[in-house]
């Protein structure tokens, strides 16, 4: 057995890391709901495991989502992740060439070049097995080092990597990253020095070794270099469980659990712990977070999640988020940032008792129609939208029941976003009774906030929930509504809850394109901006909201449109208060530009003919 004292820092560090991981993971497994544990166990033996392996390869190693964001950023992450893994795997294989296929102690392949000086292999030899390994190991090391060079550049030139702002790391993370960054240069030096002494090494280490041999007394430097390399590995392993690099082992678990169909629980639990520990603090969420514009830099997802991990969150931090979902969309790890925020708010607001007994006095509506319309609280605050919808129903000849004509019971979504699930459920059940009682088949709502909660949280069997933009699009496609083109130049704003929240991007655009000339905007569809009026934030003041609104208006109005069209009464109200452009809901624009439909035209023709006859 080959051994040297210098391997100890690495070896102890590794054992320490494994010990900590075993303790942490066992605790998380113990915290899991029994049903989730069963799901996870089943997933180990199902096809979802293949999906998991593929996802780990694509995301944790290749960093596909990072590449999509910015190729340089993707390459940097890939070179570290894939490169290091390849060093481990290939190093292991190489060590077996020399150990006759035996399994070696873990330090042996890592420090192989210290133990083995194979003088039979020529430095640039590729086509023998040892020569191939020597070549490939140098190549992989070069690959990792290229990532390191990029990482150093990223410190000062983050814009090249598509990041205007980067994460401000705490001092612990700085220690961890310094040790990580030093691992690979130390390996290069140790291997080169040894190669210089023994005339070994591959194309990289041999060349460097020969060069160093000319100027340095390598026989004195090589051994300390191996110690330094081992120390860097040791320090990195010891700091890892408390640093951002905990994401490396944990993200793998997260991907597995997610594919096993496990979700966040009602209150912060093991799954959310795993999500929190999977955050690499890459900072991709910082640029997309509009809270920064209002000077609220501390509550961005990366810092919020770090505070959760450090157990240092407070009500202010938890409350300051518009829940627009832009960070969720951008997150390369796919952490449910919004769910974590709601979870934290649930803890904050646990003691609040809500009494909705007065709601039970609401009369039930028993008009039997195919369609039931729900304007929602926000719909009532924008009577223009409500009136437009009623005109559209009239014009298209749709019999409808106006469920909340005399006032709405809130859909429950604002309470849910505030973390008050139990209170929300009372409203949900009350509304469910009212909706079901109408016997309608289609529930049309004007408010994307209501739409999302009706769709996700209500159990409305047999009733299709439609946002009015989708309903109108259907009416147009069915020929029940004929639209008149106008000379208007319009831009469309995707409301958070309708677009990112519910995936409805095309229907409102389909309708709008029949009426107006629609220009693209810089941030649209999944990247759409929040209007600033969000009910998701519980702490922002009006001035901060106005800054966010005005920035969004600026971007939306770059093409100088005549009208800004949206499909959410809250977005409409918010943008309207900016007083810079005419803002309309898609329903209002439709109501202003409807032609008589075919039936009505036919009736009019008949009347005309009768007139001629008589």
């Amino acid at each position: 057995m080959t051994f040297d004292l210098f391997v100890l820092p690495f070896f102890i560090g590794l054992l320490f890391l494994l010990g900590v991981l075993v303790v942490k993971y066992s605790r998380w497994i113990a915290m899991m709901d029994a049903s989730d544990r069963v799901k996870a166990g089943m997933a180990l033996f199902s096809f979802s495991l293949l999906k998991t392996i593929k996802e780990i390869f694509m995301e944790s190693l290749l960093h596909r989502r990072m590449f999509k964001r910015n190729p340089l950023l993707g390459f940097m992450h890939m070179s570290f992740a894939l490169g290091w893994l390849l060093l481990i795997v290939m190093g292991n294989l190489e060590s077996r060439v020399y150990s006759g296929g035996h399994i070696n102690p873990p330090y042996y392949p890592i420090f192989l070049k210290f133990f083995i000086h194979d003088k039979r292999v020529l430095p640039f030899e590729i086509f023998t097995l040892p020569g191939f390994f020597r070549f490939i190991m140098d190549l992989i090391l070069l690959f990792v080092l290229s990532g390191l060079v990029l990482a150093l550049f990223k410190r000062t030139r983050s814009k090249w990597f598509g990041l205007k702002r980067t994460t401000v790391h705490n001092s612990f993370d700085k220690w961890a990253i310094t040790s990580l960054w030093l691992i690979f240069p130390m390996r290069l030096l140790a291997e080169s020095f040894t190669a210089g002494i023994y005339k070994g090494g591959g194309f990289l280490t041999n060349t460097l070794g020969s060069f160093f041999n000319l100027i340095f007394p390598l026989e004195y430097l090589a051994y300390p270099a191996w110690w330094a390399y081992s120390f860097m590995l040791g320090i990195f392993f010891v700091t890892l469980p408390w640093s951002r690099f905990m994401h490396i082992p944990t993200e793998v678990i997260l991907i597995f659990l997610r594919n096993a169909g496990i979700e966040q629980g009602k209150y912060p639990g093991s799954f959310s712990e795993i999500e929190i520990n999977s955050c690499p603090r890459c900072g991709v969420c910082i640029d997309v977070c509009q809270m920064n514009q209002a000077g609220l830099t501390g509550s961005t997802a990366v810092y919020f999640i770090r505070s959760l991990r450090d157990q240092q969150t407070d009500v202010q931090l938890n409350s300051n988020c518009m829940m627009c979902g832009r960070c969720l969309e951008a997150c390369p790890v796919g952490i449910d940032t919004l769910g974590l925020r709601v979870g934290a708010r649930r803890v904050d607001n646990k003691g609040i008792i809500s009494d909705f007994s007065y709601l039970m006095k609401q009369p039930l509506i028993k008009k039997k129609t195919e369609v039931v319309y729900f304007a929602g609280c926000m719909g009532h605050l924008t009577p223009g939208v409500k009136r437009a919808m009623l005109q559209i129903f009239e014009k298209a000849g749709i019999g409808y029941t106006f469920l909340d004509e005399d006032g709405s019971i809130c859909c429950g979504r604002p309470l849910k976003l505030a973390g008050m699930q139990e209170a929300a459920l009372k409203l949900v059940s009350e509304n469910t009774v009212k909706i079901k009682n109408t016997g309608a088949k289609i529930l049309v709502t004007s408010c994307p906030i209501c739409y999302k909660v009706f769709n996700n949280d209500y159990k409305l069997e047999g009733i299709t929930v439609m946002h009015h933009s989708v309903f109108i699009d259907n009416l147009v496609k069915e020929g029940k509504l004929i639209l008149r083109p106008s000379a208007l130049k319009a831009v469309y704003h995707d409301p958070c809850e309708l677009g990112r929240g519910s995936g409805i991007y095309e229907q409102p655009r389909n309708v709008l394109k029949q009426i107006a000339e629609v220009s693209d905007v810089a941030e649209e569809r999944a990247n759409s901006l929040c209007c600033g009026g969000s009910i998701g934030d519980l702490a922002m003041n009006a001035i901060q909201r106005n800054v966010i609104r005005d920035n969004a208006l600026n971007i939306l109005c770059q093409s100088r449109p005549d009208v800004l069209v949206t499909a959410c009464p809250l977005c409409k109200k918010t943008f309207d208060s900016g007083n810079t452009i005419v803002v309309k809901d898609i329903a209002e624009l439709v109501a202003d530009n409807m032609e008589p439909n075919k039936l009505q035209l036919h009736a009019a023709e008949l009347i005309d003919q009768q007139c001629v006859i008589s």
Partner: protein
Amino acid sequence: MEKHVVVIGAGPAGLETSASLSKLGFRVTLVEKEEATGGHLKKWHALFPTLLSGKDALESITKELNSTIKIQTATKITGLEAVNDYFTISGHNGWQEKADAVVLTTGFQLFDSHRKEEYGYGIYENVITSADLEELFASGKEFVNRHGNKPERVGFVHCVGSRDEKVNNLHCSKVCCITAVKQAIEVKQLLPDAEIFCFYMDLRMFGRHYEELYKEAQEKYNIQFIRGRLSESTEDHEGNIVVKVEDTLLGKPLRIKVGLLVLMAGMEPRAGTKSLTTMLGLKNVPDGFIQPVDEVLRSNFTEIPGVFVAGTCSGPKSVSDTLADARSAALAVADYLKS
């Protein structure tokens, strides 16, 4: 040489400043962007608390102008610049002047009530503003709503566009509370059988005889004051307006059907005022009104020597306050030009 002062804006503030400056012996040019002078007062039927007619008030103010004052109407200011110790001022129509001092009397603009969409202005016909109501009074026509009916109930909504963060206006417009009291009494006089409601947050009866008028409104005219901000209004099938409001004294939600709903639209700084202050290089403050050097001690002075301010362009004021402010500004100008 006779010193020359240009006064910008010919509402009550501009008219009164010009008259005072002229009496003090200065050459005055009064510039107005509209065809006629008089500002908002032109369309105002009667003034609180005495019910002095707007027409009479304007006549009385205008009478003080003498023939040496040059009145330049239909002129929008496009250039305004301090050059050494004088100012150059130019209008869109080629008009140009030099002045030794400038007084900004650009007044206010009425809050656009469309921006409080939940109240239904511009959507429901029987939702009107306080200014619309004055025009209705002034027209002398029979008092009916837009459906031609004598309303059985009339509602007044206080603080529309004032003290409302949601429309970016934190300020109190000062005059709307007493205007609502005055208008409620006038409506009651025209429709003795109607029930009148005022929905308010606070009642700010700051002037002499205002509180008396408010008391009279309650005791003599039986006008009901309900403390609570309107949440929304809807229209029923007969065109009545159904308002949803919480009576915060009783702690009860209310639903009241009215035949006419009057929105007490507040005062906002004019959009044009900002372009003038920008031309001069005066700093723009968040509420948009012109900022005097000191709101207590030097309320007519701006940061720029020779540029003065009077009337509602530096904050909401009643007509009487505006006239006093205008005369005060004239004295400040005189002081500046004679030193």
